[in-house]
């Protein structure tokens, strides 16, 4: 019997759009299509081979129809930037259950150029609309950031620790021609940069870009007979969780219940422990998030995340290479960044990364969505387990 975990389900195709960054030439739907066709080509398949489609943003049926796919399985789970991690998890369950054979997961967003993007329309009757938006806690930089001072205060950490996250990740982006911010930067330059929302300066906030990415998933058994079978990336485990839509109502401002729950389930289902993990993608819309994740995922103890990054453990040559493209802070961030975190994990496991790590076998991908509302986690490997 096929399981959704333990390597029975694989990523058989993966690609980003041909260019990312500034794409005024392409609409949101166009970015989905470009990424999907690239991922299908990577897998050696065509749209005719796909019977399941998952996406977030446009309706799933808009994407499937645009590509000429007649799906027998659809997933439109929308939990912000980690939606695609949940799609991978849901697709794995569907394939294991026989509800789909080959699933396409797509992302495309015109975050910078806003070509073919739906208008942003906050709801003043929602709980967030009534109790947070009215105070200006609405944009990502003025909402997602608000608990950070409590996090730092509880642990005796400082703004310098936020700056260290930026500096470490910039070193990964420097040689990557697809990265949006590549110029090496110092702690002082980060701290003295244009203020956005104290304690956050510009470089502690993600870039805003256009682009897309897509994945093709199937069973390990089917993949053996497919053109890209020898490059398959195995899903060992996964998890998903949600806390709630209001930043103000997090149970603990210094820790995410959703990060803790989704990562715990991913470790459990994968049957791996922290020391097995060679590579970490920790969704970084803002510089505090990798610090939360390092602690909430259990890679370090409470209060240890700041010095762990400052001491170089997540940078080149460190023992836990993290966000090896430069992440959302330096590489790209279209709005729902999670797809790009998965793409880099796949590249590392296939040996295709710009900053390729030696001997990487297990990558952990941690996503977050709708500020601190939702989370998804994947454990991926180039070995079946």
């Amino acid at each position: 019997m096929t399981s959704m975990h333990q390597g029975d389900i694989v990523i058989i195709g993966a690609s980003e759009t041909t260019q990312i960054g500034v794409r005024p030439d392409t609409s949101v739907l166009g970015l989905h299509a470009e990424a999907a066709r690239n991922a299908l080509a990577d897998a050696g398949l065509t749209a005719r081979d796909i019977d399941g489609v998952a996406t977030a943003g446009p309706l799933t049926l808009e994407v499937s129809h645009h590509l000429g796919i007649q799906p027998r399985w659809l997933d439109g789970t929308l939990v912000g930037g980690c939606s695609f991690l949940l799609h991978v998890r849901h697709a794995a369950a569907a394939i294991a259950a026989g509800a789909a054979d080959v699933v396409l997961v797509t992302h495309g967003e015109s975050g910078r150029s806003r070509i073919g993007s739906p208008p942003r329309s906050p709801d003043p009757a929602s709980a967030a609309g009534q109790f947070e938006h009215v105070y200006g806690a609405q944009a990502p930089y003025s909402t997602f950031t608000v608990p950070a001072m409590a996090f730092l205060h509880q642990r005796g950490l400082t703004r310098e620790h936020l700056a260290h996250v930026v500096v470490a990740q910039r070193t990964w982006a420097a040689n990557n021609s697809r990265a949006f911010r590549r110029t090496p930067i110092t702690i002082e330059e980060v701290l003295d940069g244009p203020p956005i929302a104290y304690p956050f300066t510009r470089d502690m906030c993600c870039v805003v870009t256009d682009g897309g990415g897509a994945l093709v998933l199937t069973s390990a058994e089917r993949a053996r007979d497919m053109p890209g079978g020898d490059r398959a990336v195995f899903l060992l485990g996964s998890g998903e969780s949600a806390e709630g839509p209001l930043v103000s109502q997090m149970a603990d401002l210094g820790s995410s219940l959703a990060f803790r729950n989704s990562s715990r389930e991913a470790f459990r289902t994968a049957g791996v422990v922290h020391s097995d993990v060679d590579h970490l993608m920790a969704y970084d819309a803002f510089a505090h998030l990798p610090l939360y994740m390092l602690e909430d995922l259990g890679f370090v103890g409470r209060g240890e995340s700041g010095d762990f990054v400052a001491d170089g453990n997540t940078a080149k040559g460190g023992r836990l290479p993290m966000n090896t493209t430069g992440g959302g802070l330096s590489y790209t961030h279209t709005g729902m960044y999670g797809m790009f975190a998965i793409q880099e994990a796949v590249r590392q496991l296939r040996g295709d990364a710009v900053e390729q790590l030696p001997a990487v076998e297990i990558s952990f991908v941690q996503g977050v969505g709708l500020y601190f509302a939702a989370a998804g986690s994947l454990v991926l490997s180039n070995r079946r387990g």
Partner: protein
Amino acid sequence: MTGPSPTPVPDTLPYWDGAGVEELRIQLCLPCRTHYFYPRPFCPRCGSAEVQWTTVSGRAHLVSYIINYRPLPPFDPTTPIVIALVQLAEGPRMMTTIVDVDPTPESLRLDMPLEVRFLQRAAFTLPVFTPLPETR
């Protein structure tokens, strides 16, 4: 201070009506003896519908904040605003803004005691907080 207005719904109307008469009204779960926020007709902790609206003290302390240098319209984009999380003396945490204070880190000490004020915005009155006089 300019800014967007809320659209109350039946479950939250007593909160906004209270603000309109300069009272901060928060619900209390009778079995738990615990206040909770945001408004809903049952306790999110135990599920009981035995809850009642109470007017709370308006005392709070600062637990986190940002200073937003780039407010979006309808806020005045040229005036930095403090977006804060405060914990009420009765327990619940709220998003709010801190008024009558310099929008500088030096003026915003975490754990500082605060007191509710009420700000008129269009047809609504908005609970906001200010440092207690002795700590200003």
